Structure formats: structure tokens, C-alpha cells
């Protein structure tokens, strides 16, 4: 699949407390956000451990259910083998954990052309959209 996810190093990730950036804790309910999403440019979702998959559902709900158009960013324990899952659930950028070799990322996107089920980006499953 084509990669749209921006892969950032820790240095490239700016976290300066800008009011247009929303930090959402990993147990927060995205559907209960009280700020107006139109004023938000970026939402950071955190992976305390890469095996904690709650942020995938958060990203899906933000992108698909709430129609958030800004940047959804993965932070925390972000590793190579979860980047494709992040893109598919609606993340648009990911900050690799320190020490992770970014050069291993691209071929993970190149490997599978498409998947069985629909997701936040390509909403139709393979049986509808064989492309």
C-alpha cells in the first residue's frame, strides 16, 4: 500500500504546548472531547506500550466517526511493525521511539498491496473494492 504516514524522529516532533495541539490520554473517550475539533490541528495519541492497542480505536473514532481532518499523531512506544496498523486506523504521523531504525519502515508498507477488511482510510473491504 502507498504510505501517507509521516514518520518522524523524536527531534522532529514538536511538543510546545500549542493550543492547536490536543493530547489525548490513551484511556480517554474521543467521542467525549469538549473542545471544538475545528480549532485543533493535531491530536497526539499515546502508546504507553506498543502492545496497548487502545489508541488504534481512538484514531479510528476520531477519523471516521468524528471526521477529524487534522493530523493524528502516534507518540510513545512507536515501533516499525505497528506503523502500517497506525496508518490504517487513521494516524497521519508517527514519532518513532528513540533508537528505532527508520530505514526498516518503508518495506513494511510495500509488502501488502491491500488488505481484507476496510479501515479508516480505505473504508470498503476487499470484497467490495477489489483494487
Amino acid at each position, binding site marked *: 500500500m502507498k504510505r501517507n504516514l509521516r514518520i518522524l524522529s523524536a527531534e522532529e516532533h514538536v511538543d510546545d504546548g500549542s493550543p492547536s495541539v490536543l493530547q489525548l490520554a490513551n484511556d480517554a473517550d474521543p467521542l467525549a472531547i469538549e473542545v471544538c475539533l475545528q480549532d485543533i490541528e493535531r491530536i497526539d495519541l499515546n502508546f504507553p506500550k506498543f502492545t496497548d492497542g487502545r489508541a*488504534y480505536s481512538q484514531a479510528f473514532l476520531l477519523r471516521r466517526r468524528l471526521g477529524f481532518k487534522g493530523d493524528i499523531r502516534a507518540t510513545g512506544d512507536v515501533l516499525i511493525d505497528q506503523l502500517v496498523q497506525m496508518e490504517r486506523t487513521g494516524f497521519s504521523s508517527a514519532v518513532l521511539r528513540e533508537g528505532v531504525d527508520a530505514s*526498516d519502515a518503508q518495506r513494511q508498507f510495500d509488502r501488502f498491496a491491500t488488505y*481484507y477488511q476496510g479501515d479508516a482510510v480505505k473504508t470498503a473491504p476487499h470484497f467490495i473494492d*477489489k483494487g
Partner: protein
Amino acid sequence: MYQYTEFDRQFVHQRAAQYRDQLERWQKGKISEDEFRPLRLQNGWYVQRYAPMLRVAVPYGEISSAQLRVLAKIAREYDAPEADVYKKATETQAQWGTHKLPTHYAHFTTRQNVQYNWIPLSKSADVMELLASVNMHGIQTSGNCIRNITSDERAGIAVDEVADPRPYAEIMRQWSTLHPEFAFLPRKFKIAVTGAAEDRAATGWHDVGLRLVKNDAGEIGFQVRVGGGMGRTPIVGTVLREFLPWNQIMNYLEAVVRVYNRYGRRDNMYKARIKILVKAEGQVYIDDVEEEYRQILEHDGAPHTIPQAEFDRVAASFVPPALADRVYQSAEETEAELQAHAADDVLFARWLQRNVAPHKNPLLRAVTLSFKRRLQAPGDASADQLDIAARLADRFSAGEARVNHDQNLVLPWVHAEDLHALWLAAREAGFASTNVHLLTDMIACPGGDFCALANARSIPVAEAITERYQDLDELDDIGEIDLHISGCINSCGHHHSGHIGILGVDKDGKEWYQVTLGGSDGSDLSGPAQAGKVVGPSFSAAEVPGVIEAVLGTYRDTREIVDGKRENFIDTLRRVGIDPFKTAANAARFARTEEVAA
């Protein structure tokens, strides 16, 4: 069987390539052991007591002879430990009293999968490639994700079927495969589906249990149960929907799993299964699922509604094999011939009665090849035995077999007129034990001889009971009974659902066994799914056969004859209650000092 498309084939090969990439990065030290573990687990690779264990997915239990041959090849060429690994394993297990750790073997599991115990991790990527050559893999056979979907061993051939569950199971398999949002759930997630009136898939014991049903208008749908599971807290699933239209199943499951992913506990591994969430939240969980489902329908546009054309495409793979049309003689002639053989040989008569089941097509039968016999662990198959099973499937069953929940193989397309020839061949192969559903057809996990999680060994207990009960007349007299053995509370041997359950526990570094009575997997014989009750403090391994004997003795003394038929063990137990059985079991303890028995 489902016919793989080019897309399906490519997908499995790409998955094998992805695994090799991950393995190599781990070998080079680019990813740590902790980072690699969930990746290998989601391809079926555990690291066990002495060596890795591979769990190969057999979707809904259906397997071809070509696939069986590749499994045989893997057993023969790869299921061998390195010398130092095997030396350490045999020396350590000898201290416990195990003197035989078979290599070059495969093992059938209660979830219809196949496991190997000795393949070195360094060869794991080669094995995945070999599996991919026959459309096999280990995708999501472990890890905290949606696992391989299981079904009725008689799916598509059962006489009591509302609808064939296989097309639905296959469509759900595809949906769950590499689902991006549900790859890191709080805990494992198991789905079982059946289309029959009798539940032969233990659906009540699954995270999601699905039963195909018809509504008053004759339309097909699912009864949806959520939140069943064994482990430390055995719970039978709660019905969320009595009737969900069949084409909505994935939209609904998306809601079920999303709410679980968001709110399931992640702070305590033993409370992380969906059963705990459903139990703790009750109606709140159900309301959340229904609201999420409504959003998926109304807001997201129900993207995973199954179109009729897609259902038809998949269902077309499951048409009965052409062989089924072959008829050489009339049903009456066949029946007369079988009866003549049965009159000649009492073993064949017993086999017809125990190992042969009726079929949707009156010309055909479903035949169980028993992998429960002396000198081999329940569900174990050597490389040669797998090859023979493949040959039998080719010769007698249109090249297809099923791995069943009881750790045997079923041949689903056997002509009645071939039964005697099949029996002769199965007997020669050692697959003709006439013990299906009897005491020695027990379920047992690999236990402490292989598994790192086990508290005690299962295989020696199974072996001792098997040795004790070799008399066919005695087995027949005891009748149909489910004996289930697990080496630890993870319950892979389903002890909770056994009429008699045996659970290995560890006390002061020694092996002990807790005995439960009255469990049910939900089959017609066993009644509604429920967990067995503990009879008392645990027993030593040496005491277990005597305890079983005492419990069975109580049954034989108290059973009644109802309508000319002997009451089954489970019915007697339900009728008279657990107490007399408990008393008998506890009286079978060896004399020992109080503090040891505590």
C-alpha cells in the same frame, strides 16, 4: 473446502515474507526479545519449556490431504530439537518421571489447530514458507488478537444443520485476518460458530459464540453470545442477540470488539478477557455495543455488510465433492453388506457404532479416526501417521479431513459402501480405536512435559487412565463421558467443561491434581454449558486413577435404567447430585499426614 484466490495465496506468502523480515531483525538485534515476542506469537510461535512451539491454523478445522502431507513433512524434517536442547529436556523431565519426549510429531488441539513442539526458531521462517505453499500459516493462532475461528466437526454435513457455517466462518476469517485496529486487544479473543441444532463447537465457552438460526420468516441469522471463557474464572457467554441478520455479522462483531478494545482491563492479565468486562459491566457493556453498532450502521454506512454475491462466491467453494455422486449399489445392499461384516467381526460392529456418524447425504457417513490409543498422547500424530491420514482422506473422503474439538480427525465424505475397507485401513494404521466419546477419548493438553505455563504434567495422567481402562466391555459399560485434563488453569485441556475435569496444580514444587465433576461443553449429551465443581483438595498423580475409578464406581452403583436405556454418567450425576461422588473420590486418597494433604 474454500478455494484460495490469487489474492488469498499472495496474502499468505506475503505474511511469511513479513515474518522472515521480523525474525531477521530480531536475530540482528534490531528488535528486542520483548518487541519480537508479540510478532512471533501472532504467527503461532511460542517459546516453551525447552523449545519453541508452533501452532498452525486450521481454519474451522477443515484440512486437505495436500496440507496433511506438508504437516507430515514438517514433522519429519523440522520437528527435531538441537542436541543440547533435547538433552536438557530429557534429563529434566526424567527427574519428574517422564522418560519419553517424542520428536517428529504433530499434535491436534481442542481449537482444531495443529502444534509442533521442537522446531528451532532459526528454522521458523522456512517452515512458514513451506506452510504457505499449501495456503497454510500461523496467523493469529496466538497473541492478544482474534484467533483462528473454530466450528462444528460436521459443518456442512450434519443432519441437524440449519445452515452450513463454513462460508460464514471463512468470511469472518478474512475479516479478522490482520485487522489493524484489533491486533493488540487486552487479551486473546476466540470465536466459534455452528450451524447445527447440537452444539459440537463449545460455543458457550468462547469470547464470541455464534449459532446459525432461522427466524419466523425463515431468514438466516445468528444467535450471538459474548463473554464466555475458561481460565481462572470460567464463565458461559451471555446472549446479546437472539437473531442478528447473517449479513450484519461483521458490522456487529466490529462493535463487540471495539468496545472491548477500549474498555477491557489491561492492568491484570487474569481479568483482561472480555468475559470479565461483560460480567462487570453487564447491561452497560451491551448498551455500549448496541450504540456502537448503530453508529457503524448509520454513520459509517455498514461497510462490512456481506453482499449476497460475496456470500455466493465463498459458498460455491463448499459444494459437496463430485465423488459424493458415485453409487455402486443400493443403500439396502450396502446395509446388508455392512451387517454381514459386523456379524463376522465384533470390532467392526463396535467401530460402526462408535466411530461412524450419519451424514446429510444418506449415501455418506462421517468417520472419526481416533488419535486416542495406548503409547501415544491424546491427539498426537507422527509424521508417518499424518501421511497415512492423508492417504485415507484421498482414498475415502474426497481428499478432505477435519481436525475436531476432541483432538481426533474426522473424514467427512465417506461412502457407506467403503466403510469396511476404511475400517481395515484405519485399523492397520492404528486409527480405529472404538472409543469415540468414551472415557479413553479424553481431551488433554501437552502439559508440563512441553508447556512453559503448565503447573503439572497432563500426558502421564492421561496415560495412566488409558492403561487402566483398556477393557472394551468396561469402557462400553461406563458409556459416553467427557474426561478433560489441563496442566494448568489456562484450561487448554478444557477441564472446566469435562463431566470429569482434571486440573494440574503446583504445590511446594510438586504436581497435584484438582478434580471437578459435572462440567458441560454444551453438547446434547452434556446439557447446557457449565463449569464443573471441585470435589475437594487436590490429589497426587498416583491417586488420580483410583479417584476416577471411585467416581465411576459410584455412577455404576447409582445409575438407573430409563426406558430400557442405561442412564449416562452425567445424567446420574445431575440426578443424585455431586455429594456421593465427592465422598467416593475423597475416600480414594492414600493415607498421609494432615499437613501434606492440606
